[in-house]
């Protein structure tokens, strides 16, 4: 049995009672666990042991969950296949010749193979939804600010959220109920907006929890399968480039939802053709800054003490980082460097604002939006590693959601040629209940 879903297998017991009592959870290895090594899939952090728990880990323990190990992942979350892990690739439990997706591939594979009931991943540009789709399980990327990122080792802060993975929509939603909520240690958790999505002013000093959208929510209860009267917007721009076998399963899921009383309308988002470019410029720029902390002095692989500090740091980073991480740090450094900032980073921010505006317009016409989660079936192991740009293009349907800070869920939509296909449902800001409800109808 070796899917290689875990980098470190170690049991961390939670409280005796709680909503997740008796449930086992795999935690992606970029989420800090006190006393249990957290590698981020990188040789850089091979022996790094966090001195504290991420907020989501505290919440898992308080909810009675048992953590069963730290799940494999693309190095620092940079990849869509889990093949860039310094600890070897994870296999897809549905077909072991194929990748499980990524970057939270170990988390999704563990859940699909029943090595854990539930899992936490992180989603910067699709890293929860992609492996959920490829492994035939459910994954949720929450609205930016719904879940605390305290203790998540940063890759691209403005884009990423921790999200749940489970075998059913209801289980994923129940895990979201546990991990969501305001956190004084992450000021981007939204203290200032109630469940109506609007608000003003912020105050973290007590009495403010009622202003966080998760306070009055019950995501698990929203999994009632009732889509009668729901309007689903089909994003036509994201169907053109998709594999025919994927589109066929996607259409079949929509037929099924229509049969249950949902209405579908076509929507077009002109901006999404620039989403992948904008996403990679922003993510790489943020990565180049975030990963500057790995100098081998306070933690991580040491570069030794020969020569001056520049030599030692550059040596630590040569040894500690894999190829994809180096590629992204360098491209991000380039995009932010003098003379190129206006050309790349500023234009990418314009594109990000454009994508947000296009989504706002689309939600005037529809309650939720639908796309295939991934435009392709899971690649064979080793098939896609040599061409980074082709891999980036695989994220076309997932990255617009991160750019717009929106929630989205991937739910299984059957199989094609024996490989899973995922349906992605995108909601308006803090519209988690709407996407959970619609996704639960897909399971009917």
């Amino acid at each position, binding site marked *: 049995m070796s899917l290689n879903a875990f980098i470190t297998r170690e049991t961390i017991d939670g409280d005796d009672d709680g909503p997740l009592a008796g449930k086992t959870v795999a935690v992606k290895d970029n989420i800090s666990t006190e006393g249990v090594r957290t590698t981020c899939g990188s040789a850089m952090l091979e022996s790094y*042991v966090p*001195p504290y728990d991420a907020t989501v880990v505290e919440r898992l323990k308080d909810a009675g969950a048992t953590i069963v190990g730290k799940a494999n992942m693309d190095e620092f979350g940079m990849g869509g296949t889990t093949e860039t892990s310094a600890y070897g690739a994870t296999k897809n439990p549905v077909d072991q010749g194929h990748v499980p997706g990524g970057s939270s591939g170990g988390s999704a594979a563990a859940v699909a193979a029943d090595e854990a009931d539930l899992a936490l991943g992180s989603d910067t540009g699709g890293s929860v939804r992609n492996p959920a789709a490829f492994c035939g399980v459910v994954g949720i990327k929450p609205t*930016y*600010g719904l879940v605390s990122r305290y203790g998540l080792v940063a890759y691209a802060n403005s884009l990423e959220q921790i999200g749940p993975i489970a075998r059913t929509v209801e289980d994923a939603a129940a895990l979201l109920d546990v991990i969501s909520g305001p956190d004084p240690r992450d*000021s981007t958790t*939204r*203290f*200032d907006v109630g469940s109506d999505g609007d608000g003003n*002013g*912020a105050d*973290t*000093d007590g009495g403010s929890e009622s202003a966080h959208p998760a306070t009055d929510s019950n995501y698990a209860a929203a999994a009632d399968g009732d889509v009668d009267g729901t309007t689903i917007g089909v994003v036509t721009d994201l169907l053109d480039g998709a594999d025919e076998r994927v589109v066929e399963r996607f259409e079949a899921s929509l037929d099924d939802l229509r049969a249950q009383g949902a209405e579908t309308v076509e929507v077009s988002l002109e901006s999404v*053709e*620039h989403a992948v*470019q904008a996403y*990679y*410029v922003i993510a790489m720029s943020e990565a180049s800054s975030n990963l*500057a902390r790995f*100098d081998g*002095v*306070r*933690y*991580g692989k*040491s570069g*030794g*003490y020969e*020569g*001056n*500090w520049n*030599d*030692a*740091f*550059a*040596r630590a*980073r*040569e040894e500690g980082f894999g*190829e994809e991480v*180096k*590629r992204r*740090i*360098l*491209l991000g*450094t*380039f*995009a932010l*460097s003098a003379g*190129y900032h206006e*050309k*790349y980073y500023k*234009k*990418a921010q*314009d*594109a*990000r*604002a*454009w994508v*947000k505006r296009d989504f706002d317009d689309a939600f005037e016409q529809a309650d939720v939006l639908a796309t295939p989660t991934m435009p392709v079936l899971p690649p064979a192991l080793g098939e896609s590693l040599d061409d*980074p*740009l082709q891999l*980036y293009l695989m994220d076309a349907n997932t990255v617009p959601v991160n750019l717009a800070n929106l929630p989205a869920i991937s739910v299984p939509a059957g199989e094609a040629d024996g490989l899973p296909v995922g349906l992605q449902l995108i909601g308006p800001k803090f519209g988690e209940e709407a996407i959970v409800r619609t996704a639960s109808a897909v399971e009917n």
Partner: protein
Amino acid sequence: MSETPVDAEDVEHVAELARVDLDDEEVDAFTAQFAEILEYFEALDEVPEVESEADLVNVMRTDEVTESLSQEDALGNAAETEDGYFKGPRVS
């Protein structure tokens, strides 16, 4: 043809800025890949200027001393320490 041709020297310069040593093979591979990827990013030129509103607000808290990591825990992952400090390489 891309407006931002990339040569090996550019890759080496950026690697130096980013403090990442590269071997010759990596420089060659990245030079070819960066040309392709940056050419793809060129399409951002077509993006119009779009006004964006900040989605977040400032969050304030009282400046009070609270519990934090002990010095021992904070130094726990360092390769070398000296007298309760991190030990780094020479600055010059």
